[in-house]
């Protein structure tokens, strides 16, 4: 929520519907994640599908529940820096194992 914006209860109540919609979407995506795992896809495809669904779920939580959708630039700058270092930490070991020709 934008702390500087004047508070409008009517407008605010519209957000409540958004919260319920995201909740339903998260529940459905969880069911899809579990359902897909029973399809016994090959491992790279299964990892790809699970990661995509998890990323969609995480984006919904961050955008709507954490109000990132209406957040200030300073938070995005902070998150961009965090994501950069997160990916660095995550990918460094993976890149070392790639030399051996094996990943996941």
């Amino acid at each position, binding site marked *: 929520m934008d*702390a500087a914006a004047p508070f409008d209860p009517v407008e605010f109540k519209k957000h409540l519907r958004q919260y319920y919609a995201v909740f339903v979407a998260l529940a459905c995506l*969880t069911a899809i994640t*579990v359902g897909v795992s029973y399809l016994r896809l090959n491992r790279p495809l299964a990892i790809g599908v699970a990661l995509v669904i998890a990323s969609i779920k995480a984006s919904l*939580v961050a955008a709507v*529940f*954490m109000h990132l959708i209406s957040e200030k630039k300073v938070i995005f700058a902070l998150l961009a820096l965090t994501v950069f270092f997160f990916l660095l930490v995550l990918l460094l070991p993976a890149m070392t194992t790639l030399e051996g020709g094996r990943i996941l």
Partner: protein
Amino acid sequence: MSETVIPYMVKPNPVTGIPNGKFAIWLFLASEVMLFGALFSSYVLLRTGAPHWPPEGGLSSEILNVPLATINTMVLITSSITMVLSWASCKLGDLRKFRMWMASTIALSFVFLVIKYFEYHHKFELGHYPSHDNFYAIYFTLTGLHGIHIIGGIIVNTFLLTIGTRMWKTDPEHFTNRVENAGLYWHFVDLVWIFLFPALYLL
């Protein structure tokens, strides 16, 4: 004795455009991302380095209890919406509803921990401790750290539901900001589980 007051806890700081408490919680969450990031990285390293994952054979979904973890995922997702609704109730000036939604969030947090207890208990009965192999080592480390975060959330939320509510009478806007900050932390805990669940249980 003069009282030290942290500035811009209600109104936005002119430099950042948001209240200081909110900026602080985002900085804290950034450090949390790196904490879990390091462990996820360890997970990737252990997994790519193993000839078979899990090392003892089979699939993660056959070793771990997927139905229980799915229920726990739903419990956390539900607790996320109750948390955001508790904040929304504060914004709308309804303390009674805030109490109801916040109590629900805390109750769901306990449900999550109880389910986790049954999962751990079953593994210990089978003699599967963190020392069993790399799979169980990373499973217990990641889910254990996540569980500690759940306990942290319960402590903060219980404070807001009980003693912390006193602030509602004196400074409701500040109290609402506190609930929002606690909510940001809680949604982050949910967010971590969203990735832990498929990574550990399904893949």
